[in-house]
């Protein structure tokens, strides 16, 4: 991209400069000063339009809707063209005096209009190329999202319908029916809600954290019945954070990893802590569990985690992040940051 940009710059301004040089020499004949001033024209045209490009990028004008972006970009292009014209005239007067052919106002105006057209054409070409690229990138991201979502829906369904979880759960319910019938009834309801959530879930959706937490709570209720006192849970979610949106099933994936690969691997169990706060408009969500990072089975977790991370990136942008880290003191933490 970078290389083709410079090739276009050199070719475009080179051709334009040569054309202009040809016309001028037809009037004035060859002159060292004229050759020199056109060489300079080529250089500062390239430099100025390069600056124009940098400004367009820095101010993110390409991302604006056309009705707002185009006037800004073409005004800037016009300003650049005027600077170019001024430089042409000044240099011509300094270097060649009256021989330049710029003595007449008419001549200067013709040159100015030529430069304005050239620089605006440059800008139009630049916008066309950049927009086309943005469009293709957007299409590509959308396709990527669709693929990832397809995978995650499948995986989420499989995770919720995780056979090991499901059959253990049914086994617990079977036992609970004679030990504590009321609790058994609750478990059946929880299992039903969890399955409903898994079936309704669309991976491309953002859902409110408080809604996601409902499914997470059902899941935790079922795992608590199975693991009993081995599973301790703490939830601390601020009012503001609860209203924020998260990609559906991301919290569920993290909590499930924490239970399945953290707590269930420990003979004496441990604690799962779910925290969410907003800080500088960003949502910071943390799922922490007792355990060691190396205890994590690379096969299962990393696909689930990688998928969650990918959906987070596609739905919330490159600035959103998901990190799994050893939090010290025998704790493992998964941290999600979603900027405002």
């Amino acid at each position, binding site marked *: 991209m970078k290389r083709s940009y410079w090739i276009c710059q050199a070719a475009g301004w080179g051709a334009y400069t040569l054309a202009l040089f040809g016309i001028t020499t037809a009037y004035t004949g060859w002159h060292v000063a004229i050759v020199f001033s056109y060489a300079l024209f080529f250089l500062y045209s390239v430099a100025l339009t390069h600056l124009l490009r940098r400004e367009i990028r820095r101010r993110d004008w390409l991302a604006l809707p056309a009705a707002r972006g185009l006037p800004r970009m073409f005004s800037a292009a016009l300003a650049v063209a005027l600077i170019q014209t001024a430089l042409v005239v000044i240099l011509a007067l300094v270097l060649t005096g009256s021989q330049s052919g710029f003595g007449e106002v008419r001549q200067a105006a013709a040159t100015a209009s030529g430069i304005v057209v050239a620089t605006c054409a440059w800008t139009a070409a630049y916008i066309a190329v950049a927009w086309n690229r943005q469009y293709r990138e957007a299409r590509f991201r959308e396709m990527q999202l669709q693929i990832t979502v397809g995978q995650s829906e499948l995986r989420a369904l499989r995770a919720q319908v995780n056979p090991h979880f499901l059959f253990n759960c049914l086994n*617990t319910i079977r036992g609970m029916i004679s030990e504590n019938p009321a609790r058994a009834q609750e478990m059946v309801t929880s299992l039903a809600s969890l399955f409903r959530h898994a079936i309704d879930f669309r991976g491309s959706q953002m859902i409110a954290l408080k809604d996601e937490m409902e499914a997470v709570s059902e899941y935790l209720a079922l795992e608590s019945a199975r693991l009993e006192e081995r599973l301790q849970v703490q939830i601390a979610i601020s009012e503001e954070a609860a209203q924020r949106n998260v990609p559906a099933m991301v919290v569920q994936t993290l909590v499930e990893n924490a239970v399945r690969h953290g707590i269930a691997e420990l003979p004496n169990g441990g604690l799962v802590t779910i925290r969410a706060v907003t800080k500088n408009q960003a949502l910071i969500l943390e799922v922490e569990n007792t355990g060691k990072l190396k205890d994590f089975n690379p096969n299962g977790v990393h696909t689930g985690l990688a998928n969650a991370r990918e959906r987070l990136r596609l739905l919330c942008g490159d600035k959103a992040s998901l990190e799994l880290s050893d939090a010290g003191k025998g704790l493992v933490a998964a941290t999600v940051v979603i900027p405002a």
Partner: protein
Amino acid sequence: MKALIVDDERMARQELRRLLAAHPEVEIAGEAASGEEALALIQKLAPDILFLDIQMPGMTGFDVLDRLREVPEVIFTTAYDQHALKAFEVNALDYLLKPIAPNRLAAALQKVRPQPPRQSPRQSMEQIFLRDGERCWIVKTREIDLLESEGNYTRVFFHNEHPLISGSLAAFEARLDPSIFFRASRRHILNLNCIKGTELGPAGNLIVILPGGQQVELSRRQSSILREILSI
């Protein structure tokens, strides 16, 4: 029949206990909530039958069996474990899927119920647990033909299998009945009941031929000991 239930989930143990109530011949001698506890109770109670959960924290059901010198009858229990299920099916091990169906439990118990007395009552019923990667076997020691040392591993020949098992030959020697198993050489232990024939080696030593066609060459010293045992 004395039984030990091993499962990390209380509710799962409770449920199995309830199901076993329909089988008065099974006496539940104890319950273990972890691999460590299971090892201690097996030592203490010497159960005839183990109901063994596979996925337990710290020590899996397979790890428990790995540490036993001698394994009782085992009925594995699992909610779902693709790898384990494959191992069970290949080697016809008994397993029950949770939640356990009462008729499946009855069928599994039928299989392990003590058999009527054999013609040769002195024949050893000892069995050991062997694991090679994802594959595992519970093998009657009398069905092992030959053990061959390969460094820290030992190749065990039985039926038509010869998996490479973690553990030195010396470790196996300590677990096997010396009246049946003979240390033939530095690298070999063979089952005296499985000798198919012998040949005379170049130095007057013996070469033993086993059912699988393997030949084991003995030193002259071991040859004379074997001659004595076999009275040839």
